[in-house]
């Protein structure tokens, strides 16, 4: 009973993790890609907590998703502002 439920849990977790990675990598908008990356980091922390590694999950949630996500968010909004200042085409790729 518990083993079957746990297998279902694993399947949902892994499928969504890979789907999130694909969505973050192919998204045309840069800021959307960064937010999907933050969600990916959160999901990864959840998976590692499931694999009984709470210390690693803690570090990933605080440093990987939080700090890295905030850094990338700042960089993405700088890129968007530069693009709207230059008008139209974005130097960093992706539409503004």
């Amino acid at each position, binding site marked *: 009973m518990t083993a079957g439920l746990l297998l279902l849990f694993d399947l949902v977790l892994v499928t969504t993790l890979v789907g999130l990675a694909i969505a973050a990598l192919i998204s045309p908008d840069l800021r959307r890609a960064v937010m999907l990356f933050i969600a990916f980091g959160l999901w990864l922390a959840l998976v590692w907590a499931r694999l009984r590694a709470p210390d690693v999950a803690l570090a990933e949630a605080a440093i990987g998703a939080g700090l890295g996500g905030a850094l990338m968010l700042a960089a993405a*909004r700088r890129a968007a*502002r530069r693009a*709207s200042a230059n008008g139209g085409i974005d130097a960093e790729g992706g539409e503004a």
Partner: protein
Amino acid sequence: MEILLETVSLLLVGAGAFFFAVGTLGLVRLPDLFCRLHALTKADNLGLGLVIAGLLPWAADPFLALKLVLIWLLVMLSGATGSYLIAKRALRGDGEDLLE
């Protein structure tokens, strides 16, 4: 006694999961930003509160129970602050890169 406790806990956790499901449904289906904000805060406060209330009787020691209540209070505080910030910048209309 044990059975009663299990039933109450099951009901509370089930109600919490129900509120999370309804909040997610609202976030996906409602038409504009402020309605979605409304749905989001319901899921945040009520859903998590009910799940934690259902987990409390099973906490091994009082400090773990205290930590659970602390997590709930922290989520309520940060959820209220974040919703306020998002709504303020959306209402004022000068969040040029927040609203595209």
